[in-house]
């Protein structure tokens, strides 16, 4: 059957998109801005491949991401290969297997796309754009704090004014759930209830058990342990499990390295969150912007991941989800990411050499310039320039005549000497 060419949607698989210039310019802006930030913080780029051997990749993925992986048969190797759903395990693999001789710490960054299967529902993205950093070889709370500061700086750079960074410590819940003298099916029910912060079901499930009161109270407190810094004191009062208290201490140490104003205005805590990636081992965080229900950045400590590739290193990192940022900041990016071309060159007649010379001169002087190569009246050329985001139209007759310089926005006009233009003696800053 011939593919349906009548509607553009029928041409693409579900969950992937074409981005036209306006949106694509915004994605470019986000990518470039974050790359610059990473560079300024001393992070150096790595570019992992799109395809990985499935068994190698899976060593670094938790069960959640494993089930979301796109996999294929590799005709050249007879193995199963996969398009990675997460770049962090790839960077961990590279560090563990190829960078042993470099001194620590290693600061690495990347931008790239990943694919993830999602539940069958229209409109959910399956292709994710990520830009992230990974820091290997340091394990102090100060480092975790620095990652948070960096995420906040990134959000500010791309133009986010209001945001929340939600902190958790995965060992906290893990410790409370660890070693419960309960059947697996009951623990599954508890996890399910915790995931939904469903106190009612949690209570009902616990009522069927004969758990000691202290541990029961710990579990019952979890769904409500979210909010501002006061939550940490509340947790302190309730929690007795030693490892959970250690996790709490660790979180406090991390906050100790953060500016007080920052904590007050931007940081929230969720100690009962059990979502997240299975490789995380300590403080984790997610960034939220108003008006969007999904996180725009997320990350945290993962001290055991490189070990799965044969080299034990403490590590932490985070990544921005560019499409979520794009969605949340779409309007404010109109201005920031707007891409104008400086000049459209218009020349009538057969001899196009003067236009070519001027275009080259403009580009050499750092301006962007394109030539209108259609035979048409200048009014049409001007209308085209307006629609396609040009700032100026230059109408050229020949080297001897002055060049007409029209401002596209308001149609105002001045004339400039051809030789002055070619020698870079002009000002288009207005």
């Amino acid at each position, binding site marked *: 059957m011939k593919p349906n060419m009548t509607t553009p949607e029928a041409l693409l698989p579900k969950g992937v998109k074409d981005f036209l210039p306006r949106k694509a310019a915004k994605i470019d802006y986000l990518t470039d801005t974050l790359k610059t930030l990473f560079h300024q913080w001393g992070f150096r780029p790595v570019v992992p491949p799109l395809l990985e051997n499935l068994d190698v990749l899976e060593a670094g993925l938790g069960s959640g991401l494993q089930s979301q992986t796109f996999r294929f048969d590799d005709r050249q190797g007879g193995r199963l290969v996969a398009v990675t759903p997460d770049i962090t395990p790839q960077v961990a693999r590279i560090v563990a297997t190829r960078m042993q001789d470099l001194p620590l710490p290693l600061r690495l960054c990347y931008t790239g796309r990943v694919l993830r299967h999602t*539940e069958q529902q229209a409109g959910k993205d399956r292709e994710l754009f990520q830009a992230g950093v990974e820091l290997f070889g340091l394990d102090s709370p100060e480092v975790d704090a620095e990652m948070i500061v960096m995420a906040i700086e990134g959000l500010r750079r791309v133009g986010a004014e*209001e945001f*929340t960074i*939600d902190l958790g410590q995965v060992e906290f819940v893990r410790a409370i759930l660890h070693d419960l003298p309960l059947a697996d099916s009951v623990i599954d029910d508890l996890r399910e209830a915790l995931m*939904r*912060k*469903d*106190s*009612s*079901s949690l209570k009902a499930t616990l009522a069927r058990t004969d758990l000691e009161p202290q541990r029961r109270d710990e579990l019952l407190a979890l*769904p*409500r342990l*979210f*909010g*501002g810094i006061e939550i940490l004191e509340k947790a302190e009062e309730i929690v007795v499990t030693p490892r959970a208290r250690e996790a709490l201490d660790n979180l406090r140490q991390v906050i100790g390295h953060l500016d007080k104003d920052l904590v007050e205005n931007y940081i*929230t805590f*969720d100690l009962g969150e059990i979502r997240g990636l299975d490789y995380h081992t300590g403080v984790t965080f*997610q960034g*939220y912007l*108003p*008006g*969007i*229900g*999904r*996180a725009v950045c997320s990350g945290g400590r993962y001290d055991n991941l490189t070990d799965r590739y044969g080299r034990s290193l403490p590590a932490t990192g985070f990544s921005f989800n560019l499409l979520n940022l794009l969605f949340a900041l779409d309007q404010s990016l109109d201005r920031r990411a707007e891409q104008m071309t400086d000049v459209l060159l218009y020349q009538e007649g057969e001899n196009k050499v003067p236009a070519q010379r001027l275009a080259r001169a403009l580009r050499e002087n750092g301006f962007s310039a394109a030539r209108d190569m259609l035979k048409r009246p200048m009014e049409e050329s001007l209308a085209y320039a307006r629609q396609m985001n040009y700032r100026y139209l230059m109408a050229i007759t020949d080297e001897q005549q002055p060049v007409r310089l029209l401002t596209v926005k308001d149609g105002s006009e001045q004339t400039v000497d051809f030789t002055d233009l070619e020698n870079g003696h002009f000002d288009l800053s207005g």
Partner: protein
Amino acid sequence: MSDWITFALPKGRIMEDSMELFGQIGITCPEMAKPSRKLVFENREEKFRFMAVRATDVPTYVEYGCADLGVVGRDTLLEQGKDLYEPLDLKFGYCRLVVAEPKELCQGDDPASWSNIRVATKYPNITERYFAAKGIQVELIKLYGSIELAPLVGLSERIVDLVSTGGTMKANNLVEVETIAEVTSRLIVNRASLKTKHRRISRIIHDLEQVVGDEVRIST
């Protein structure tokens, strides 16, 4: 804008029950008392907004963050499996999700020996999961209403549907054979809102927890 709290509520009885409960913790909307065909109501002083939507759409509005909070039956949540927080059972709107079949079939029928059965339902996901867990293959027939009709006209042998008093089942000569889940209305919360508006939302959850009793209620 971002300091407002928006609720998505299902039109009808559950909305009335919800507003009555919210009234007990001081969340009111005088605008709603006037008869109108509006779908959005506001309490400007307190910065609350209420949207009246279809019950099955409530989780969607909340998942996408158009509403911070919602009230919806657990049946809808189980069926849609969305990524939401469900901090509280509000204990009203009680009913049960059951497997039912005609009286004649029921006599001498042993659920343990079911295989390859045909089931009509509004809840294909729950039904499929339920029977799959029991190792029973089912042919699902998705209907949008009047499920009780299906066995009477031979569309399916059995149905999976909600019952509250059991009146409709009885009138159509059907008997319940198994209960899949007990259903009440739940408070649901958008995941980002819970974090970004945690002060107001924590307060609401905490206050509601104090006024919601232990008794479940049928909403009629």
